[in-house]
């Protein structure tokens, strides 16, 4: 399975080369085989006797992070969706995207997304899952911003990334808490410890964090605002990421963790409420849109809400319906997106106000859209899969385990949301394909799309019809296993079309059709309601003002200290150092003082020290270049003298030589540099500098005394003294350390000096050239 996950990534590495070398052949043709073969690989697992498979590859075993792949019914459903729809989308994109586009980029992003998505649905390790999860956000960001020259694309890309990554980070927090509580990183192991998690004090927090991740990813109310803006992506991407796969990652996450949380009342309330509100709000808002893809975006939001609500119910019937609808939604919504792409491609616009009467011009597309929209609306016809899942949904709302007020309300809200679903489905179909033709308003003269572009939606619509005609065909081998992974008590459901007139879900469906039709026909008359709700109440406004405030405030904070004054930066760094170090010393009782084991004090040393101290202080007050230089020389030679006294002949020698050269160098430069001036700092500023300088010096002295007074480890120098001759063959231990034991350090030291010499040379040389010009 690791190959299935990583193959898209591997192929992605070669795409840039292929797309350059074979410019005559569309890059998509190479890409197509990747998801297609993965689909063929996984389709063989479909069968009644399927059992979950588990494979482990070590990655970071010390942290419990391994590439654990776990294929159960739920993963299988998603893997087949990702690879199946992926193949169709790539096929469709071959005809949708022109060869002039940057195809290399497009397919690299798309393959990156496939790897990420396979990783999300197959990982059993929460941290690996999180990694792939964020990778889907990043690839989605790149794909939405594919046409990066458009301002709307960049806005949409950024918005989707900010919202989904915010959710992803919350989810990560939830995962960390989960793994701390259960002491494992495996999801299956967590499920087996569900009682530990359910009795934990952190349960509400964990649930909230993980749900945030799922709700942002699956565009649930009020985080749905990123999905309509994500429609700036090329249509194949919208069909793939933003309707069939990525937005269902949140659903997948909820389904995956359902076995843990389903026993918790808060889970039912939150997930069902958010789901059902999203269903109503999404479908209500869809009717208002004028852009074809925006209608589909809100429709996706509302359908995702419906699946989310069913997972929230958690009953066996609801879970089964949810899994069934995941598949159905992918078929009809995928085909509708592709049809919307065809209309855009062939007419040059997606504005439904300019479109109309295209049935005769685009007959095949129109037929496909007919099946897609009617299935989405849940029209009770025996060859539309959308109707079955909608009926199962209604059935599930009537049979809730909870007895709260919310449970009473849910069937009514479900019907309300479905009425609007019906309205926007009709609006989409009849708005585009019937009514008066307005060909003069269209940028292009419309004609039927090339056959290649139609293949993918045709296959998807065939799926709609086949599932509709034989709804129970894939139950036992496929859907059943997926439902079992979510709720182990899931029972076999025979889906049938007719249950008799008195079957309540059928009555609900009929109410939806009748009221929906009425609302659709009188749409113009009640459209004023959108001025009241949402009116000015818009979550986009909240998002926009948040983002712009964030920009202003962070710029303000940065500007307050990034003034360009190096002195200020230096002071800030030093003050931080002093405060942090001394407070740590204070709080940990780091300061120690012991007067034992000290060397004796002699007059010579003390006089050298006093001379040096006076000289060092004098550097501050000198006003003459030469005087400053001489004083600095005094300090330098004083250090050399101390080295002699403390039996360090090598460094004393080096210090004398270096000090002499430095003094010579200073003399050379002083001649060219302006005279030292008396500082023109104000008194306060001087005082500040003095305080910083003195406290830093005092801090260093204190650290030194503490270090000298504590003896935590044996000195390691004995090793050098013992082995100097044996290993290095030299009597001078310092030299042996430098050239032998730490030879590489010395080599790099020489390199540093060389670089400094080159820099100095070029600094001087540069001027000569300039003068010559």
């Amino acid at each position, binding site marked *: 399975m690791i190959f299935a996950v990583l193959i898209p990534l591997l192929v992605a590495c070669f795409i840039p080369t292929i797309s350059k070398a074979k410019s005559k052949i569309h890059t998509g043709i190479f890409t197509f085989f990747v998801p297609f073969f993965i689909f063929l690989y996984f389709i063989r697992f479909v069968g009644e006797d399927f059992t979950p498979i588990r494979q482990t590859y070590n990655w970071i075993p010390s942290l419990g992070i391994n590439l654990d792949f776990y294929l159960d019914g739920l993963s299988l459903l998603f893997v087949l969706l990702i690879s199946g729809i992926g193949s169709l989308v790539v096929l469709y994109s071959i005809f949708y995207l022109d060869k002039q586009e940057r195809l290399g980029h497009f397919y690299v992003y798309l393959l990156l997304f496939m790897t990420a998505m396979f990783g999300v649905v197959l990982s059993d390790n929460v941290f690996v899952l999180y990694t792939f999860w964020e990778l889907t956000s990043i690839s989605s960001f790149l794909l939405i911003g594919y046409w990066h020259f458009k301002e709307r694309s960049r806005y949409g890309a950024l918005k989707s990334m900010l919202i989904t990554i915010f959710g992803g980070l919350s989810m990560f927090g939830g995962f960390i808490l989960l793994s701390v509580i259960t002491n494992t990183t495996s999801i299956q192991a967590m499920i087996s410890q569900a009682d530990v998690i359910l009795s934990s004090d952190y349960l509400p927090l964990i649930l909230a964090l993980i749900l945030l991740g799922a709700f942002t990813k699956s565009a649930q109310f009020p985080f749905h605002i990123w999905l309509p803006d994500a429609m700036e992506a090329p249509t194949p991407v919208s069909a793939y990421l933003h309707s069939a796969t990525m937005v269902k990652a949140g659903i997948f996450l909820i389904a995956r963790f359902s076995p843990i949380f389903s026993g918790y009342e808060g889970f039912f309330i939150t997930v069902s409420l958010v789901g059902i509100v999203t269903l109503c709000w999404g479908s209500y808002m869809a009717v208002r849109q004028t852009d074809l893809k925006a209608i589909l975006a809100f429709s996706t939001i509302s359908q995702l809400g419906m699946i989310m609500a069913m997972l929230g119910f958690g009953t066996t019937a609801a879970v089964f319906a949810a899994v069934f609808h995941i598949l159905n939604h992918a078929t009809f919504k995928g085909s509708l997106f592709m049809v919307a792409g065809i209309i855009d491609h062939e007419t040059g616009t997606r504005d439904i106000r300019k479109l109309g009467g295209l049935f005769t011009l685009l007959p095949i597309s129109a037929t496909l859209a007919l099946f897609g929209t009617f299935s989405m609306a849940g029209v009770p016809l025996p060859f539309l899969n959308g109707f079955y899942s909608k009926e199962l949904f209604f059935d599930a709302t009537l049979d809730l385990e909870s007895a709260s007020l919310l449970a009473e309300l849910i069937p009514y809200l479900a019907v309300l949301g479905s009425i609007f679903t019906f309205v926007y489905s009709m609006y989409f179909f009849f708005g585009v394909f019937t009514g008066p033709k307005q060909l003069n308003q269209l940028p292009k003269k419309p004609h039927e799309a090339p056959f290649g572009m139609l293949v993918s939606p045709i296959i998807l619509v065939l799926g709609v019809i086949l599932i509709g005609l034989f709804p129970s065909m894939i139950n036992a081998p496929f859907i059943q296993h997926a439902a079992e992974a979510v709720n182990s008590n899931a029972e076999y459901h025979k889906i049938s079309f007719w249950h008799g007139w008195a079957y309540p879900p059928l009555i609900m469906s009929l109410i939806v059709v009748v009221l929906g039709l009425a609302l659709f026909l009188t749409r113009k008359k009640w459209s004023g309601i959108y001025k009241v709700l949402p009116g000015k109440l818009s979550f986009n406004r909240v998002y926009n003002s948040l983002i712009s405030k964030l920009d202003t405030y962070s710029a303000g904070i940065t500007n307050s200290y990034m003034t360009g004054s190096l002195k200020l930066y*230096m002071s800030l760094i030093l003050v931080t150092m002093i405060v942090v170090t001394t407070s740590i010393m204070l709080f940990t009782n780091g300061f120690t003082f012991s007067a034992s084991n000290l060397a004796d004090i002699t007059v010579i040393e003390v006089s050298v020290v006093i001379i040096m101290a006076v000289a060092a202080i004098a550097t501050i007050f000198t006003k003459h270049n030469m005087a400053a230089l001489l004083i600095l020389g005094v300090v330098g030679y004083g250090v050399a003298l101390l080295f002699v006294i403390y039996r*360090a002949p090598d460094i004393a020698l080096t210090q004398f030589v*270096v000090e002499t050269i430095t003094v010579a160098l200073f003399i050379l430069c002083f001649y060219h540099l302006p005279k030292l001036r008396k500082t023109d700092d104000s008194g306060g500023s001087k005082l500040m500098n003095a305080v910083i*300088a003195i406290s830093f010096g005092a801090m260093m002295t204190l650290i030194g005394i503490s270090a000298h007074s504590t003896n935590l480890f044996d000195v390691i120098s004995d090793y050098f*003294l013992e082995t100097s001759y044996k290993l290095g063959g030299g009597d*001078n*231990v*310092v030299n042996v350390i430098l050239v032998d034991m730490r030879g590489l350090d010395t080599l790099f030291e020489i390199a540093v000096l060389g670089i400094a010499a080159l820099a100095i040379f070029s600094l001087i040389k540069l001027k000569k050239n300039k003068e010559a010009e």
Partner: protein
Amino acid sequence: MEIIILILSGILFATAIYNLLQKQLLRIVIGTALLSHGAHLFILTMGKLKTGQPPILTDGVSEYTDPLPQALILTSIVISFGVTSLLLVLAYRTTQENKTDNMEQLRGKANE
């Protein structure tokens, strides 16, 4: 004696920092030179002072001073020499180009 040397090293650090916080480039260079002197004395003291003969193996001698700080300081002297010379030349060039050696005037332009 170690404590006296550490106090001296503290004084060197303090004067170095004070010089570093000045506006004139030359003072900053002097500051870095003082800083390295202070650091060298600091490192030397960490190995305790006058504990024996210079670390050159001789027959009949068993007590030596700690060779490790000396090796570190030797490296450091050379590096700080490189740094000081580079800074000097840099200061010289900066002054030539910008006609000022005042750091507060060398801020670059806005949005740069």
